[in-house]
């Protein structure tokens, strides 16, 4: 149980002179929410992209469930059980909400080469899809066109699609953005319970949510992790205060 689900070791990635990831090491343990915070441009998105497989690191290695996945692509990592949500919603906008969830269920099944049977009448896929939608509270808009959803509902659908994959770990990039106060609180409660199913690496600018949820927090500044620890440790870390939280507290 103590083996980390995700292990990132000495990851580096540069764009020209810009070091977007500078010798980053972190891990995600079973049952925890590990939050990744840092000011704008700290390299959070670049890191997430490298972990999910969309970007190849210059150096370092990434391990998922004890297996080196550094050279695997996004598809292979998704199949290993990496469920990701995007900062900017990446959904099939022409589809209904339900179709997007069914697509996730189809991905979890791993085969999408049925050419004749109506996929929207596949009882097993529909059950998985409806189940995921009701868990995030989207069951009432299941038939709506995804493009007609509000910004917040799209975030919820992102999470629902990730749920259909029954992943072994979640990678969530700003899932609360655009949710509003009550929606954000609801999702906070939901993620709180979700960590028992699979650990979550969470990127989230909403500090209240992060400090309420996270078992551990890593602070990223200029591409490097300057501190990792519990909420209290991070709050009291002088370096973190100077680099990141300090401005608010001093003012």
């Amino acid at each position, binding site marked *: 149980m103590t083996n980390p689900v995700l292990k990132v070791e000495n990851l580096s990635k540069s764009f020209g002179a810009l070091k977007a990831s500078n010798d980053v090491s972190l891990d995600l343990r079973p049952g925890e929410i590990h939050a990744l915070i840092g000011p704008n441009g700290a390299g959070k998105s670049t890191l997430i992209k490298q972990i*999910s*497989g*969309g970007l190849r690191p210059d150096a370092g290695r990434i391990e998922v469930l004890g297996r080196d996945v550094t050279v695997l*692509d*996004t*598809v292979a990592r*998704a*199949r290993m059980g990496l469920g*990701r949500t*995007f900062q900017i919603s*990446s*959904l*099939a*906008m*022409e*589809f209904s909400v339900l*179709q*997007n969830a*069914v*697509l*996730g269920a*189809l*991905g*979890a099944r*791993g*085969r*999408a*080469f*049925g*050419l*004749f*049977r*109506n*996929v*929207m009448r*596949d009882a097993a*896929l529909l059950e998985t899809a409806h189940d995921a939608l009701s868990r995030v509270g989207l069951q009432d808009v299941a038939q709506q066109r995804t493009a007609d959803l509000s910004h917040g509902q799209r975030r919820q659908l992102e999470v629902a*699609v990730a749920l*259909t*994959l029954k992943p072994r770990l979640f990678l969530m990039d700003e899932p609360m953005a655009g949710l509003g106060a009550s929606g954000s609180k609801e999702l906070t409660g939901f993620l709180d319970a979700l960590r028992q199913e699979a650990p979550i690496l969470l990127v989230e600018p909403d500090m209240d949510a992060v400090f309420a949820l996270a078992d551990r927090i890593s602070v990223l500044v200029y591409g490097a992790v300057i501190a990792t620890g519990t909420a209290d440790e991070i709050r009291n870390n002088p370096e973190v205060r100077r680099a990141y939280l300090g401005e608010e507290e001093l003012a």
Partner: protein
Amino acid sequence: MGRERLFNAAMLLALLAVPLLAWGLQEPFIITLATKVAILALAGVGLNIALGLGGLVSLGHAAFFGIGGYAMGTLASHAQNYEPLFSWPFLFEGSNQMPLIWLTAVLASASGALVIGALSLRTSGVYFIMITLAFCQMLYYFAISWSAYGGEDGLSIWVRNEMPGLNTLDPIQFFAVAFGVLCLALWFSARLARSAFGLALSAARQSEERVETVGLAPFKLRLVAFVISGPITGLAGALFADLNRFVSPTMLSWHTSGEIMIFVILGGVGRLYGPLVGAAVYILLEHLLGGISEYWQIFLGLLLLGMVLFARGGLIGAPVGSGGGA
């Protein structure tokens, strides 16, 4: 959705009714026109799977149309000259039987689609358009210089190939053959659009990232789509060659690719019956305006321009309204 279905059924019935009426009035030319519509629509149905469902803008579908045409041409010409295509490693004789010709056309264009797809699907956007076009042009010049099968002059077949139980020289019977194949292809592509594969392919068109993230490989989906799409257009090529009893490199030219694409766009990209409407309008314009002016395509161009600027849903979108999709 209901209105589009009604409209589709009406279109299909019209395509059936016109030649039947012409048959009663003894107007074989009109039957031939309707046959041409059915065959060209079939070519469009093939392209629509790649273009409409998969978002793959292939300007090389004439390659499959031509491969189908030449599959018919080579088999039939060997049959009429009583010489086998090759005798090693096994004896392969020519044939004038449509089922065998179709099978050959489908297998040949599927292999072509596999090769062309595997190479060109590694690119996207404008590069994909150019590479598919380039493959098509390669085949075009190959056909021009292949003198054994007529080269630039093309290849004539004296007698239309045979279909067991039918007299294909009778225009209405040959129309029935083409119409039957078109109906089958429409039925198949309707099933495909609603299938698991259709859902995943359509999702890959809308968001490649999304499909990858759920663990499905867009490249594989698109390659399969290409290998399904190509043979349908190839089958149309075999029928088209049989309609004219003539195959020439023109079938492989990029004009042909463009025409097939025009059928799809005129009718409405991604609309199941779009290619049928597009092909019907194209042939009608060619027939009606072509009699008035050699430059009838100017009007086609204006129509296409209007379509693209003001009615993205195509000609079907106008009476039926937008939406639909998969």
